[in-house]
């Protein structure tokens, strides 16, 4: 799978899928060139990468980080940003004494500064069988979006943790940090494929939540085609991460190209239902879809999560620079 997500044709992208994508492929991807040699005209070329590096994921409150980074931490540290004074206690670094105050008040005070640390950005990809459908493919879109978000995180010197939700578990890729890890990240994302069988989104989210040790922005990319999707969002929100939900639906799901007496087969569960599709049925479907999205939006709002419904046909550039910025998930 080439992560040249700007390719308008997912089928073409699927033809380049390979279990192992080498560095050359990643270089090609970065250069906006697919494995087949065709020029990828839109994203992940040099210019797009430069644009992504100007973005950062918005963190609305400070969290405790790990290594020194660019994010304000709740800890006091060595940055140049002054925060407070406190009385000197033996053992403090004498370089932290404010000698001007000592001279004026003849008391010892230590200057405190804001500590700047990195945060962990969690990107969760729903790899259920239902995501492997639609035109363009929803999973293909999810990998492109995850790659773009992760690239933003790596460019911001944050730690990026990618999780793949499938079945009842969550496979967490090794956290990465630094722009140099972009190639590795893309390669890992290229290996993400759909999983056959049913997926318990709640259990998978709970499994990932149990693995979170450092809080930070959490982006869930899923079609949420699960009756318990609201609970899954709740599981993630319970980690006190700043959750954003990218609700991905394909154009075929937004406007089903169906007509007549049909037997619909569930790609994930194999369940079959008979339906007669006419304009009235399609109207009812649209109404149900709109109500369902509204319900998910309300659930996200209650949990202070951002809800971003998108179509899998949406270009990644529009996603990053329009949709996510408009909803304050990323900033410039």
């Amino acid at each position: 799978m080439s992560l040249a997500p700007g390719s308008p044709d997912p089928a073409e992208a699927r033809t380049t899928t390979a279990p192992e994508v080498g560095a050359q492929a990643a270089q090609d991807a970065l250069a906006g060139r697919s494995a087949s040699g065709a020029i990828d005209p839109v994203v992940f070329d040099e210019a797009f990468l430069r644009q992504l590096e100007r973005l950062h994921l918005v963190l609305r409150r400070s969290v405790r980080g790990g290594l020194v980074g660019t994010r304000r931490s709740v800890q006091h540290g060595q940055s140049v940003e002054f925060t407070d004074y406190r009385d000197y206690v033996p053992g403090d670094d004498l370089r932290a004494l404010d000698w001007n105050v000592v001279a004026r008040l003849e008391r010892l005070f230590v200057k405190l500064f804001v500590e700047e640390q990195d945060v962990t950005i969690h990107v969760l990809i729903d790899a259920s069988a239902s995501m492997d459908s639609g035109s363009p493919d929803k999973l293909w879109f999810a990998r492109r979006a995850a790659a773009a978000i992760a690239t933003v995180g790596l460019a911001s010197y944050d730690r990026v943790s990618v999780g793949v939700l499938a079945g009842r578990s969550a496979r967490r890729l090794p956290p990465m940090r630094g722009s140099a890890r972009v190639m590795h990240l893309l390669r890992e994302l290229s290996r993400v494929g759909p999983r056959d069988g049913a997926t318990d989104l709640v259990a998978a989210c709970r499994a990932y939540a149990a693995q979170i040790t450092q809080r930070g922005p959490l982006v869930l990319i899923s079609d949420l085609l699960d009756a318990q999707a609201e609970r899954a969002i709740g599981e993630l929100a319970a980690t006190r991460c700043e959750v954003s939900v990218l609700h991905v639906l394909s154009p075929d799901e937004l406007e089903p190209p169906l007509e007549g007496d049909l037997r619909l087969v569930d790609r994930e569960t194999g369940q079959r239902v008979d339906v007669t599709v006419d304009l009235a049925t399609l109207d009812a479907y649209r109404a149900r879809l709109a109500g369902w999205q509204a319900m998910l939006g309300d659930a996200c709002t209650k949990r202070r999560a951002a809800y971003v419904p998108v179509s899998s046909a949406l270009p990644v550039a529009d996603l990053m620079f329009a949709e996510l910025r408009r909803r304050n998930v990323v900033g410039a």
Partner: protein
Amino acid sequence: MSLLAPLALVGLAAIPVIVALYMLRMRRPERTVSSTWLWTELVRDVEANAPWQRLRRSLLLLLQLLCALLLVAVLVRPVLERPATLAHDLVLVVDASASMSATDVPLDRLDAARRAAIQVLDGLPAGGRVSIIEAGDTARVVANEVTDPARAARAIDSIRASTGTGDMAEALRLADALAARATGSEVIVVTDGAGIAPTDVRVRVPVRVVPVGRERHNQAIAALAVDIDPGGLRRQAFVSIANQSDVVVTRRLQLLADGVPFTARDLRLPVMSRTDVVIDEVPRGARILEARLSRADATAAGETADVPDHLALDDAAWAVVPEDRTRQILVIGPAGVFLRTALSLLPDVELYGVSAAEWTAGTARDGDWDLVVLDGVIADPLPATPILAIAPPTDSALGDVLGALTAPTIGEPATDEPLLRDVDLTRLHVARAQRIELPSWARVVLPGPTDVPLIYSGVRDGLPTTVLAFALEQSDLPLQVAWPILAANITGELLGRDPSASQPVRPGAVVQLPVPPDASGLRITLPDGTVREVEPGVAGDGLATFVETRQLGVYRVEPIPKPGVDGPDARPSDPGASSPTPASASPGPAATTPAAVDLRASGTRWFAVDLFEPTEAAITPSDGSALVALGTPAPEAPATAGVARDEWWPLLLLVLLGVLTVEWLVYERDGARRIRDRLRALVPGRATGASGPSGTAGSGGRSGTR
């Protein structure tokens, strides 16, 4: 209520079949979707292996069951029975005379009569028979013993108004004959009752009348004639306007010469009277004169405004202006003073005279004579021109002289003899006359004793010929007023200047058209432009019979040159015209005395067909009591005729079509909605259902399915 076709109830078996089709599970094509979760509330059925499914409430099912029920109801032909109001055998006479074209009822009286006649048929008992007679200018049976009301209605609808006098007497005779075939018949006449009811008809069954028409307002051109004074200097048009209305009206009379208006005047027409107008300024050279009657721009004081003229047929008339060519007449013989005086008084005539010996010697034989008068002599040879022979002394082609008659008795001439028009010979006395055997080509004009004619006339070898069996000096005819009129009539017929030449032809009348010797037939152009060709009859009299005179207007008659004869009018026959109509030896029952038409010359001639019928102009409707009186009174306690049936299947069929339409609309409602949506999409800013990139658009809608 009863059923005419109860076997059709078998069709009810279709109802369980329809229900079973709805219970059968259909075979659906499979489509893989990402999830069926969003569809779960919209599905019709969950997968099951059973071939049957539970019957659900469906609008389509209800409509289709209703369609099946209605179809069965149509097929079983339910009828509602009621007592019949008519006899089992009915003869329906529909008046189709010209007065039925009056528009005092919508659309006109004939249309109202057709509707009334069809309505009358509702009272016909089941299995009843109806014969329908169209009483136009001739009586015609349009349906004979029809039992199917629809077929009878079609026959009634085929009746068209004629342009002439309706022959109600003949129609009633025909109805009487048809009604006599069955006992208990009756005759119903649908008529406006206008005109004079026949009196010489008796109908042996009861007669009922269904009247139509409401008003009597009509103004008509009752006469139009053109005459030239004896000097030929002045032409006069005589127009007579009849007002049949009971109010005074003002109408505009417009006269046209060859289609060009040349005068118009407003006439105040008194109540129920005729107004005669003489117009002197007829343009010279005009061939066709047309008179039109129309509404005047303003009405005089005291008149009722907006008095309608309900009959338009008699608001126009045409007349053929007599030809004013100078004729040359040669008299062979002594030419007495009475004869010379009578002939010299004729307009546009040049009179010449020679003796029989001079004629035999060849004198004046090469003259271009229009008429040769043999006054007491027989010319040898006989001139090849029209001949008026007076007292021929010897046998000749004009007739064999068998002897002499002394003081012969004068017989009763035919009333419609054209030569005796306006001629009273009841006081004629003849001292001596020739006993001449009537030739085969002649008709008796004035009969004498025992089949011996005193005056006879006819067409001999294509040449009009008239013979007086007595010399003028041997009678008191020259002393009577009738003589110059008779002379004018005879020479007029022989010269083609018969006063009847400008007389109109009655609509539907048979016209005898002389065919010139160098012509193979006649080409006749009707007022509507239709062209007909006629050939002379086999009788050898050089006459062709033309019967298609139902249209009002001017008929153009042209001779068709014989092959190889070059003439100014020689031209090939119109390939688009109908095939030549052979002259009919028997014109039919309507053939009365043929109208004479000025056609003796070889050029183009015209004749006019006009509706100068006072009985048709008087459109005052009546209740038809005069017609009822012609029939036998109905018995006071008529026998029960039976029951009439009102079939319901047409109404049920209409309902079925309506339900079918609704069913189709329900079935195709998606198609209609798509068309509507696409049309709206064509209008800028009216596009609907578009979803943005985030795909959150959706609209509420019906949850029903088909």
